[in-house]
């Protein structure tokens, strides 16, 4: 479905961005991307979505409708929440869907608000709804739940799962929340360095939906933390 062949995109004479990334994805797969800040995760999504064409290497993406949620909400300040959600759709038929999504992300009663009157989390939820409304085949998500409280976050993770179950959407999910990655993804990529390189790949075979408190997942978490070179750090800090 998606095959990425040795793609690099660097800035500053190769001092930032990412390089030599190779992987492939099958339909309906959910891939998580973890990595230190500035390791090129957002840049990778920008390349995959076609926004950045200055990359080197090559990649194939079958003829699919791509949806993307950016790291910042990027709402149109002149549109109300409702209109922002409907931003990408032309037909009136989808208005119903907009209503549903508004409900699902918990923004009922805020349809008429302008972005400037939203809280950070509400803006992020609006952006989530906007990226879901076109029902894309490939969904690129850049830290979609970073500004949400634990409660809302879980709700929306489940929303994402339910969409995946219904439409077999292929997803690439950039996140900093290891639990989130473990709960949602089939494979997790770990980017490290500056420019970032694909450092490790972790496969999670458990069927979705998974149990949040699962022991197998907890083990994976320890593995990931050690891969991110964190385990020692934590011990050190905790003395």
């Amino acid at each position, binding site marked *: 479905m998606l095959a990425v062949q040795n793609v690099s995109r660097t800035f500053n004479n190769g001092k930032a961005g990412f390089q030599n990334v190779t992987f492939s994805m099958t339909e309906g797969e959910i891939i998580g991307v973890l990595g230190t800040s500035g390791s090129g995760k957002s840049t990778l999504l920008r390349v995959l979505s076609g*926004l950045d064409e200055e990359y080197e290497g090559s990649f194939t993406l079958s003829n699919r409708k791509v*949806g993307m949620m950016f790291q*910042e909400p*990027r709402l149109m*300040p*002149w549109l109300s929440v409702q209109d922002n959600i409907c931003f990408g759709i032309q037909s009136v038929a989808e208005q119903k869907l907009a209503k549903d999504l508004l409900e699902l992300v918990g923004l009922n009663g805020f349809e008429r608000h302008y*972005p400037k009157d939203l809280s950070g989390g509400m803006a992020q939820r609006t952006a989530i709804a906007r990226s879901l409304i076109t029902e894309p085949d490939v969904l690129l998500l850049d830290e979609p739940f970073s500004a949400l409280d634990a409660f809302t976050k879980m709700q929306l993770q489940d929303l994402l799962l339910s969409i995946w179950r219904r439409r077999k959407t292929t997803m690439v999910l950039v996140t900093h929340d290891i639990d989130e990655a473990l709960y949602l993804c089939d494979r997790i990529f770990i980017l490290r360095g500056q420019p970032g390189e694909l450092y490790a790949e972790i496969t999670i075979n458990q069927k979705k939906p998974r149990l949040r408190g699962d022991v197998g997942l907890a083990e994976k978490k320890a593995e990931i933390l050690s891969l991110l070179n964190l385990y020692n750090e934590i011990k050190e800090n905790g003395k």
Partner: protein
Amino acid sequence: MSGRSDSIRVQINKSKTRFTTNLLWKNNEKWVLGSIIPLVLLIIWEAAARVGLIEAHLLPAPTRIIQEIFEMGAGGTLFSHVGATVFRVATGFFLGTIAAVLLGSAVGYFTVLEKLMDPLIQAFRSIPSLAWVPLFILWMGIGEPSKVTLIAVGVFFPVYLNIVSGIQGVDRKLIEVGKIYGFTSTETLRKIILPASLPSFMVGLRSGMGLGWMFVVAAEIMGASQGLGYLLVVGQNTYSPELIIASICLFAGIGKITDALLKILAERSLRWQDSLSNQR
């Protein structure tokens, strides 16, 4: 660094009480404050004229001007002069704005077009209104079309300039959102770029309206027999300071009204802006 240094702050139900009592003042404050300086100036001017500090044949007293305007009003000519000019400016403004929006958004959005056409347009921008007059007479005669077109030319440039740079200043992040949805150029323009550059466009409109009023004099040199610009020129040709000043006052007054309308329009359409002005 000074730091915010108020040690104790106690405010109870501040906003609620404020709201009801001061509503009347709030509504009229703008007008009252706005008229203070003009009124003071008028009074000084009148006093200076009365005392004889200013000679009447150079600068007649405000009362004389108002009388002149009233006389014109009573004679019915005022209305036709004002009407003719307002009509010309309005039509010219309309046409100029349309041209500026079309050309401006094309030039602002397509780099090639900018490189092709912008240099020429910028060169034309500094040609004075008076210089256009003979050319317009030559090309279009002295009828209403050439007058309206000349005004449109005046309106065009600031609107165009503001649109182009408004568009070029649009946040790349928002445009990328459109790209994700596979927007065509026209869609991007219509749904992202134009709304995003609206603040700049509004300034352009107001600037353009100002220039429309300026160009109307040049336009009405072209064989008009009605209009404020005509009055001004007649005043200058027949050496009637009261006519000159009366027409200047009318220019200022009506110009101010049109600008206020545009300002209200701007405020209305920019409510969504998270800006200094909306904060108040």
